[in-house]
């Protein structure tokens, strides 16, 4: 993993993460952002843990079946504040990627996460999550051990939390497997990260039968999975800027900017009572998509019985 590299000073003035700044003409296209989000050199959860937190104590296992390498969880200090951390880890070397199943969690990963959510709640620790997955593992074992139930449980568990929850989409946010870490008071997204109901490849295969490069490019476009689009839809709360060329070009600077955004939101959320935090989360997700609802008369109704 990336060593703690605090020795060289931040060279850049901290670009304040902005709310939906207008896209410059040079802004990357949707598929370019997907590629940036998947870049193997892009900082991952454990990199941000190293850059932003102190005294990370990793918590392993779901106490049911196993320890899933695709999800890392633990306790750490953000400045002086003890916090709980949960995030997907894709891995970088081939060996690590295999050990971490390329960041695609199994049910035991989500159950480990749930255990840490409940721990955070019980001891009043703010929860910070890092979302970086193509999606939950689609496999025989995952289905046998209840992938759907594990994700569903986490959605409900996150809603209930009486502590501040800040989710950071740092790479690819793939469908329910991402949302199981995403029911937060504040959802931050890095400029070149994305968040989608389906991968562009999966979408292209369904819509146009073939995931050719052209179809995948089109799919990325129509899915509106890039940070500015998600902000406009109300799916995320704030875009966190990345260094020129993407987070991988200057990981420490990317971490610094993300850290500032996390701290700013935590400071605000930590003033709220547990019941208010839950209520705020409920309201936030209850409103998802409501702006696009219309009233349309139907003739028949269901007058059957």
């Amino acid at each position, binding site marked *: 993993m990336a060593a703690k590299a605090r020795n060289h000073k931040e060279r850049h003035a901290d670009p304040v993460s902005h709310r939906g700044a207008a896209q410059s003409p040079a802004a990357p296209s949707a598929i370019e952002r997907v590629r940036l989000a998947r870049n193997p050199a892009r900082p991952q959860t454990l990199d941000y843990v190293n850059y932003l937190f102190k005294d990370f104590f990793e918590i392993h296992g779901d106490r049911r079946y196993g320890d899933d390498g695709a999800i890392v969880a633990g306790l750490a200090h953000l400045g002086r504040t003890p916090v709980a951390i949960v995030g997907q880890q894709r891995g970088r070397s081939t060996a690590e990627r295999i050990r971490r199943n390329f960041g695609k969690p199994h049910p035991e990963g989500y159950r480990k996460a749930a255990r840490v959510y409940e721990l955070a709640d019980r001891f009043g620790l703010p929860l910070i999550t890092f979302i970086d997955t193509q999606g939950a593992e689609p496999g025989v074992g995952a289905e046998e051990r209840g*992938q759907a139930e594990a994700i569903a449980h986490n*959605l409900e568990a996150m809603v209930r939390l009486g502590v501040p929850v800040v989710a950071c989409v740092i790479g690819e946010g793939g469908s*329910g497997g991402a949302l199981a870490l995403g029911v937060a008071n504040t959802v931050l997204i890095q400029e070149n990260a994305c968040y989608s109901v389906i991968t562009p490849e999966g979408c292209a295969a369904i819509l146009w039968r073939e995931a050719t490069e052209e179809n995948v490019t089109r799919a990325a476009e129509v*899915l509106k999975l890039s940070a500015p689009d998600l902000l406009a839809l109300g799916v995320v709360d704030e875009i966190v800027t990345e260094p020129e060329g993407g987070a991988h070009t200057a990981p420490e600077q990317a971490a610094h900017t993300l850290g500032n955004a996390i701290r700013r939101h935590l400071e605000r959320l930590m003033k709220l009572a547990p019941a208010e935090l839950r209520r705020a989360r409920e309201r936030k997700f*209850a409103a998802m998509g409501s702006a*696009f609802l219309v009233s349309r008369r139907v003739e028949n109704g269901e007058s059957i019985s």
Partner: protein
Amino acid sequence: MAERATKEQTGQAPAEDIWVKCPGCREIAFRKEVERNLNVCGKCGHHFRVTVAQRLAITVDRGSWREMFAELAIGDPLGFVDSRPYPIRLEQARKQSGRNDAAVTGLAAIGERPVALGLMDFEFMGGSMGVVVGEKLARLFEHALKRRLPVVVFSASGGARMQEGALSLMQMAKVSSAIARLRDARLPYISVLCDPTTGGVAASFAMLGDLNIAEPGALIGFAGRRVIEQTTNQQLPEGFQRAEFLLAHGMLDAIVPRPQMRDTLARLLADLIARRPRALRR
């Protein structure tokens, strides 16, 4: 996701034919007779899919159904275009079904027990969940909480609706949040998983019942079979992702054949409501 499932799956009794071939035992049966038998094959017990209207007719007490939130509809949040624009796709599904979207919600009685009832319409774009499905179900749970009613939801869905992008994904959290509140109020929620219940619907409200029960043979799972085969090269076990497979792996509370569903629901609702000590009621 959802769109494809409609085309791939079989088992829907075609409305025009007099005869129907059972995908379970391959016998040819008289369609009227299968229908009289609640769309269950008399020879092998295969459960054909049923429409929302059929489901209501065989589940709720006659004359008790009152639909709610029927007017909720979606615009075109993404400006989504594949081979056709999303609004045109929607308009066609609306014309065919006579409803605005893929979920129907309302109040009914089952065995004289009042319930808040939700049903998914698989014929409407594969029962896919977009903002309307999420909103209707969330409102149903909220209404049940206010009126202190139990909730029953019949799921049948290929998952989240691609055409509404990340907004459809967020509906998983929206409905789960409403369920959490109902649960805190100690009101029962029975989830009935019908063929098929997959993707984002399985990974949210369908698996969050106080009791999760399924119809025999229902396809239930998170990932699609094709995705699993392609990404893992794994041989899929016999009966993979069928209700019986989930029951054997501890993921369902029970499998209930359709002819017993109404009475079973009535009995469970009675048990879960009546046995709660008075002191716990608020």
